[in-house]
């Protein structure tokens, strides 16, 4: 579904990503782990078009998308839930969700009715969001904001979801909840690329995983294989 080949990207005059390659098959959950500063978030940003890759290819469902702007890649079916969640603080929870489905809703009127089914699905997954649907997103707690960010990505009915550090800054109990959610998404057949610092938890839910070091994929394999690997142990920490 998503193929990344020899991707290079960076900020200003520093190249962060030096030829990363990875694949996400349809319906699978793939984890991208590695030390802080290894280039995980940069990979995500380069895939979704938030930064322009300097070299390399990104294929989404067989279609090359590298070099397009983020909005265009999103329209082609990629949903990126960014690091730090980035919910639209002043807007209500429901508006946040509706904007998630921006691409296939009418631009002016009648969009609420058209999004009904998706909204219900997200509310079922996260009943807390239904309780707070009128509340401004910025006033939610960190865990609720993370649920909203995931829900917003789901609203787009995307081919692939990129999930960047969903557990960041959350209390341990909430982190467990987040991973439970990811498991449920997996059962629902959602294709997911997951960046996580909690490597062990990530490996528990993933079908396949890549370990990044210094802007490159250092090791890859199934969770079972990786759990035996010394270098992966190092990546737990950073």
């Amino acid at each position, binding site marked *: 579904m998503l193929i990344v080949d020899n991707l290079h990207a960076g900020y200003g005059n520093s190249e962060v990503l030096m030829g990363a390659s990875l694949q996400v098959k349809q319906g699978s959950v793939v984890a991208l782990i590695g030390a802080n500063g290894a280039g995980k978030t940069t990979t995500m940003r380069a895939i*979704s*078009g*938030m930064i322009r890759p300097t070299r390399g290819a990104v294929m989404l469902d067989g279609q090359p998308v590298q070099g397009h*702007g*983020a*909005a*265009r890649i*999103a*329209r082609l079916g990629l*949903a*990126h*839930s*960014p690091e730090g969640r*980035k*919910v*639209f*603080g*002043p*807007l209500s929870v429901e*508006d946040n969700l*509706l*904007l*998630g489905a*921006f*691409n296939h*809703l*009418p*631009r*002016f*009127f009648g*969009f609420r009715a058209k999004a009904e089914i998706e909204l219900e699905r997200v509310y079922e997954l996260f009943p807390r969001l239904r309780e707070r649907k009128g509340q401004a997103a910025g006033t939610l707690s960190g865990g609720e904001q993370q649920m909203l960010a995931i829900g*917003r990505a789901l609203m*787009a009915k995307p081919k692939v979801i990129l999930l960047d550090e969903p557990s960041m800054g959350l209390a341990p109990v909430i982190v467990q909840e987040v991973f439970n959610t990811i498991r449920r998404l997996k059962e629902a057949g959602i294709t997911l690329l997951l960046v996580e610092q909690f490597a062990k938890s990530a490996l528990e839910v993933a079908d396949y995983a890549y370990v990044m070091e210094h802007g490159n994929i250092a090791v890859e394999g199934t969770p079972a294989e990786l759990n035996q690997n010394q270098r992966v142990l190092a990546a737990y920490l950073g």
Partner: protein
Amino acid sequence: MDTSIILQMVVSGAFMGLVYALIAYGFQLTFATSKSINFGQGELVMLSAFFSLTLLNLGLPYWLMVPGGLLFGAALGLVVERAGVRLALEQKSEGWILLTIILGLLGFSAAENIWGRDDRPFPTPISADALHVFGINITPLEISVAIGVFLVMGAVELFKRKTLMGKAFEAVSADRDAAELMGISATRTIMLSYGLSGMVAAMAGILISPITTVGPTMASALILKAFAVAVVAGLDSGFGVVLIGIFLGALESLTSFYLGSGWREAPGLVLLILALAVRPNGVFGKSTMRKV
């Protein structure tokens, strides 16, 4: 001093204040999406007024002229965005301030040469004969200004709150990157905001012209007060501009009555500088936070 005269001053000043508020509202629209405003907005008001006058002179009825004028204003807004703002925003520089001033100057010079330097009357079907309400004179023209201002602001607010495009607009102002990830093009949203802002400016021109007449310099004083209203209320304050606009309109009307018409502009300017000293983000604005 007779209170009814003071009241009269306050009321007619307030109607003018609504026009300042309308232009200030146009600044808010572009500030929300791009943190930039058009320093040549006054010229945009003036050019739209001249264009509308030309439409009327060509024999178009008033009610058909209005949409024509608004479209022209929106088109000018788009030109300003493309030529003056986009590049500077991409470079994250403040060149847009200079560029919008420059484009305004160009528009001013064009108007001077195309339509001449003289002030011209702007015909309107609405009567300027005063009605007496509680001892105060109010003209239907003034009432039409108020109605026009609220109609336009109401329509834009409705658009922002009730349509998905409008919500996208708010999303871009809240978090540009995240909005892009939803498939919302920030560039197009900024274009939209400049188009809307141009339209709002055109409406202000059409509403005010019958009262002030049309001429190249018609908006130079107007725009300073609109700036003042926008800054005093806060560039992200929503309907705060209406209150501040009415307040400023009334205040300057009283000032010109007591100190002479030459001092008319002073209160707005003093208020603006004071507001920056006391509440840099405006009376109704939100405080911003430095980030690293």
